[in-house]
């Protein structure tokens, strides 16, 4: 946990430094961008984190572990992929929900499939935005090229799981 945090801080510092070496204006723009982002998202995070905690309290105890548990294997990954695909709403719904499922006993690989399915298939976003901006042909091309990928992500995650013991969460 602290290793990846350290790596991230190091990367961020190096990137900012590169900006400043390119010019004071570039560096300042990156800093202002960071501050803006922080101002915008801090209230969101403060509001959304309790939601995750509350939802975990609400979900029936064995529901998540039965259907999406670590031992549910490829079936669980398939269910999670589809559930993610039809999950409406933005990240403030998907991520707290995944956390709640994890805490209620769902497997990390299944949740990787859920998040990936929500990202890639995203029925809601596809119909509202992609179709209207880019058209049906683009949607068809993209879905044909990508529909098996969330499932694949789940399987890959299952294979890599031993290297990420913290992914199962608390």
């Amino acid at each position, binding site marked *: *946990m602290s290793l*990846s*945090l350290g790596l*991230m*801080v190091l*990367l*961020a510092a190096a*990137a900012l430094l*590169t*900006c400043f070496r390119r010019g004071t204006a570039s560096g300042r*723009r*990156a*800093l202002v*961008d*960071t501050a803006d*982002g*922080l101002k915008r*998202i801090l*209230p*969101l*995070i*403060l*509001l*959304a*984190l*309790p*939601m*995750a*905690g*509350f*939802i975990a*309290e*609400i979900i029936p105890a064995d529901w998540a572990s039965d259907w999406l548990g670590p031992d549910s294997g490829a079936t669980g990954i398939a269910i999670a992929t589809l559930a993610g695909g039809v999950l409406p709403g933005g*990240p*403030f719904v998907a*991520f707290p929900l*995944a*956390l709640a499922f994890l*805490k209620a006993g769902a497997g*990390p690989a299944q949740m990787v499939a859920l998040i*990936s399915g929500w990202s890639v298939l995203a029925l809601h976003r596809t119909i*509202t*935005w*992609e179709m209207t901006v*880019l*058209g049906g*042909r*683009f949607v*068809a091309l*993209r879905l*044909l*090229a*990508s529909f098996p*990928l969330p499932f694949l*992500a789940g399987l890959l*995650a299952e294979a890599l799981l031993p290297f*990420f013991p*913290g*992914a199962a*969460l608390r």
Partner: protein
Amino acid sequence: MIRLDPNLLRVGAMTLAAGLGAYAVRGWDGVARGLAVAADLLVMVGPAVVAGLALAAALRVLVPPGVLARWMGAESGARGLLLASLAGLIMPGGPLAAFPVVLVLAQAGADRGALITFVLSWALNGFQRIVIWELPVLGADFALLRFLVGLPLPFIAGWVARRLPIRWTLEDAPARGTRASDSPRGTRASDSPRGTRASDSPRGTRALDEPRGKQP
């Protein structure tokens, strides 16, 4: 002072509803446990959020997505797909910002494979979303695992898309944006009367944040 944007209100309402639900199911103990979980998470991931935001901001200054577009043509091969992955990674914002950028990239010469890779990379591995949501809510180990697993997928999708018999050009987009509609099929942005190439201006992609007014 906290600005009351609709997103904030929506999240606030959902949290309130979840809190009421937790109270109804488990009483005050449930509410207290939920809040304790939230406090733990915040302390754990606060620094990561700041670092991630700084990294994303610096990357956007150093490598604006539009700049990469001219190396994403149909002949660009694997390198074009890698660049498209990178562009999607640093692309900030939601679908309102990202899909119009697809039009900008297409006009700058990116082929359909690169465009598909870009969209998927943004949707799966968009840095801003990982930093703002995945890292704080699901923790570093989960976020890293999902990121690693997701990293090759946009590349695969772009590779597949180049081999699918579905053509897509700017003509097929209902909302072609103000600039894209100027150029006839097949011409590059440099030939367009307006002559403003998104790839030349670091902020070029921002300008296309608002063509939703043009939608049918």
